[in-house]
């Protein structure tokens, strides 16, 4: 019982950033644009959130982490515009552009950290996301203790956003257009859908959500920013999106599972039945599972058909 409480709460903690970022990836890839740059978008989000938090902690008080998230969202969206311009307008190889985004985000944020603070990493923030007992819900017997005590609001926001994204992609006209553009851009164009516009929106949404993901990670897990703050979480989110078969709720499920695996590598040593399993297996689980999923051993995963190909009007 007690064990379950620890596992669930730390899973939710580690999963939240992955959920946000994986949802961002879902938008982008559903529109046909590969986004390897998720890692970089998380880096810039984490950087922005921490700097904003450190700067404005006195002004905004307890609201600071939330407002910092908004800042991270905006800056993430701005950075993703670069990816959009390169890969949509200038038909760059989307993978190359994504790699550039990753390199650029890390270089730029470390450069600015040294410029602003004169050292390689920031101070720890004072106003981070805290563990809370969710009012009312935590009073429910059993379930309340497991799911709603000692937990983070951000985890619940992440899950709610996953449902919103599912609704947007599968139940709204915008979602229909988004999927059409990702599957068959020429057909979509023929039907009067502005392919370029939809793709731009999708990539910018992925930047916004990736920025939030990085901001959540930095403000609830690391509390400061350095070169190692984001180390692979963006790629793990990419993995979650693929493992979840480009479906928002699938991505959320996979992110929860990867969050579980990540948290086990931290709390594993304190769990009796896991003491003897080397950490290594838990660390590589998300990556190996993704490869297996892609190979078709865990159900066939089909990517959007136009994924990775720039749309050139008039080309057949």
């Amino acid at each position, binding site marked *: 019982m007690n064990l379950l409480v620890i596992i669930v709460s730390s899973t939710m903690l580690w999963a939240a950033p992955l959920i946000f970022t994986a949802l961002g990836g879902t938008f982008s890839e559903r529109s046909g644009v*590969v986004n*390897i740059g998720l890692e970089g978008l998380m880096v810039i989000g984490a950087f922005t959130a921490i700097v904003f938090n450190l700067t404005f902690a006195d002004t905004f008080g307890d609201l600071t982490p939330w407002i910092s998230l908004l800042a991270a969202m905006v800056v993430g969206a701005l950075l993703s515009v*670069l990816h959009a*311009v*390169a890969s949509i307008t*200038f*038909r*760059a*190889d989307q*993978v*190359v*552009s994504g*790699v*550039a*985004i*990753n*390199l*650029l985000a*890390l*270089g*730029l944020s*470390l*450069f*600015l950290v*040294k*410029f602003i603070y004169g050292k390689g990493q920031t101070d720890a923030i004072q106003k981070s996301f805290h563990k809370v007992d969710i009012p009312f819900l935590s009073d429910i017997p059993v379930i309340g203790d497991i799911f709603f005590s000692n937990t983070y609001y951000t985890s619940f926001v992440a899950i709610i956003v996953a449902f919103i994204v599912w609704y947007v992609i599968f139940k709204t006209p915008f979602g229909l257009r988004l999927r059409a553009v990702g599957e068959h851009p020429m057909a979509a164009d023929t039907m009067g859908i502005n392919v370029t516009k939809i793709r731009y929106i999708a990539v910018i949404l992925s930047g916004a959500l990736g920025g939030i993901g990085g901001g959540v990670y930095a403000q609830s897990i690391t509390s400061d920013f350095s*070169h*190692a703050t984001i*180390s*692979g979480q963006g*790629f793990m989110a*990419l*993995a979650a999106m*693929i493992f979840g078969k480009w479906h928002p709720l699938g991505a959320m499920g996979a992110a929860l599972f990867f969050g579980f695996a990540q948290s086990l590598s931290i709390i594993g040593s304190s769990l009796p039945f896991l003491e003897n399993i*080397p*950490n*290594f297996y838990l*660390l*590589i689980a998300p*990556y*190996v599972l*993704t*490869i297996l999923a*892609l*190979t*078709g051993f865990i159900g066939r995963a089909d*990517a959007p058909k136009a994924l990775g190909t720039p749309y050139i009007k008039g080309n057949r």
Partner: protein
Amino acid sequence: MSNRFKNLIVPVLAVVLGMLVGTIIMLVTGYDAGAAFSALFEGAFGDIYYTGETIRQVTPYILAGLAVGFAFKTGLFNIGVEGQLIVGWLASVWVGVAFDLPKIIHLPLAVLAAAAAGALWAFIPGFLKARFRVHEVIVTIMLNYVALHLSNYLIRTVLSEKSDRTPNIHDTASLKSPFLEGLTDYSRLHWGIVIALICVFIMWFILQKTTLGYELKAVGFNQHASEYAGMNVRKNIILSMVISGAFAGLAGAMEGLGTFGYAPVRGGFTGVGFDGIAVALLGGSAPIGIVLAALLFGSLKVGALNMPLEAGVPNELVDIIIALIVFFVGASYMIRIFIERLSKKKGVK
């Protein structure tokens, strides 16, 4: 305008634009850009010691660039060079530590172990691509992380007693060269540069002079046409990845047997594999181009270390410039349109 000229002007313009944006960033943040660039140049070539260090840094860059470039030629994107480099590094050090052999056998064995480990690591995405049509980009990214954790795990449990690094390799497996060190005022320059240059020749030879190379390029241009012409596309995809991985593994051996002499437990990636992508892109995946691009990025990286000391500018500025160069090469369509418009205007006049 000739095609050859265009192929040359895109990378050159990308470098110029990258430097330009880097300068703008320094001006905006109030740093002295002139001092930064002269510190950069000083730090890369100002002294024979620095030159030695630059060439040492260029060595793994050449091999990582060859790895990415070779795969590019076949239409494959090997983002997994970083992971292949890590397993190559580990394998070479493993052989260097575990055996006691005369140098003439030990050193080649350690180098070959690195190539074999890298090749094996790249075989996985190659096989999955050929057999299951799984996109190699995602698989190689995932394998990078597996390689990182696997290497850390093996170093902690098998190669040492819970230590943060392996023991030093035996001298018989070392690429260190007192001769080259003496020549460059005791920099860490080692014999690896010779191996790297031989590999440049090997890549050129395979691509230009062999049937295999012809088939690989054909598959890169048009898979269906190659298939129709009777080529075994699947075999070629796997082979291309394996050769690419062998280059990447050798890049790891340069670090393991040459520069460091051991393998450390790592908190993150070395970055050499990712910079290899930049090298290959800028070098247009051609052997000579890769050498030139590796020279540029190697000088930038080593020279950058001098920037905080001499000009007070964070060395991450160079990472920004490298990222921008990748970005501009990637978006070369932009540059091409620009050039075409320019030349059209001239035509009208």
